[in-house]
């Protein structure tokens, strides 16, 4: 066996309490890492932009979730139109 992260699904339950459905939502995830949290909602959101300054993390996320717009950048360098996101997630990154 390998490492097992949150097999109790507590993180998913907590996120679902905050956002009961990601359907139709434009999501920005800040500090996505290799996409552990991204994977909780990526298949149901309308669009996902996932950012992290670590290139190797973004490469790993792209490999796992090719439909996600993954960018190796911090929020301070992110170029997006104002008010173009429905949900912004700080993923253990504040």
């Amino acid at each position, binding site marked *: 066996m390998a*490492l097992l992260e*949150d097999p109790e699904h507590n993180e998913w*339950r907590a996120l679902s309490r905050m*956002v009961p459905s990601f359907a139709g939502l434009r999501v920005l995830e800040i500090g996505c890492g290799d996409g552990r949290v991204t994977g909780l909602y990526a298949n149901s959101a309308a669009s996902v932009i996932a950012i992290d300054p670590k290139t190797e993390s973004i490469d790993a996320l792209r490999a796992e979730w090719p439909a996600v717009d993954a960018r190796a950048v911090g929020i301070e360098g992110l170029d997006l139109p104002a008010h173009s996101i429905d949900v912004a*997630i700080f993923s253990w990154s*504040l």
Partner: protein
Amino acid sequence: MVDALRRARGLVAPTGCVIDLHPTSAAALILVGDAIGGPVDTGGAKGRHQAATDAVAAAVRDRLFTVDDTTEFDFSVYGDTLDELQQHIHDDWCEGHIGDVTFAKAQALLRASPGRRPRVRERVVINRLFPTFPTFAPPTPALTQT
């Protein structure tokens, strides 16, 4: 951190929200089953986690957001061995390690509970923040009449 929240507020639609997930400043623990081996030595992480909590409070105080909902949960990572957890903490955490005392106690717990897997448990807070925008009340007749 408040700057990052301010930037996020500018990107989120007025009807949207910001979700913040971050560990609390409570000690991360090594456990075997529900038995506690001891805390993980996390160096300066406790201060960073508290700073994240403080940043959310400051953003609310500055009227950038209101906190609409908040809750906490346990986040555990299980390994086959303590060495595997030690490597995970080394690789994935900004800083931290399982100190000798915690390691030895957890080893003893594992010997007493064959088949159990050790885990590291963090306490995590999640907040849903709604952006606030200035509201302009219509002028009252008393102020507009000359």
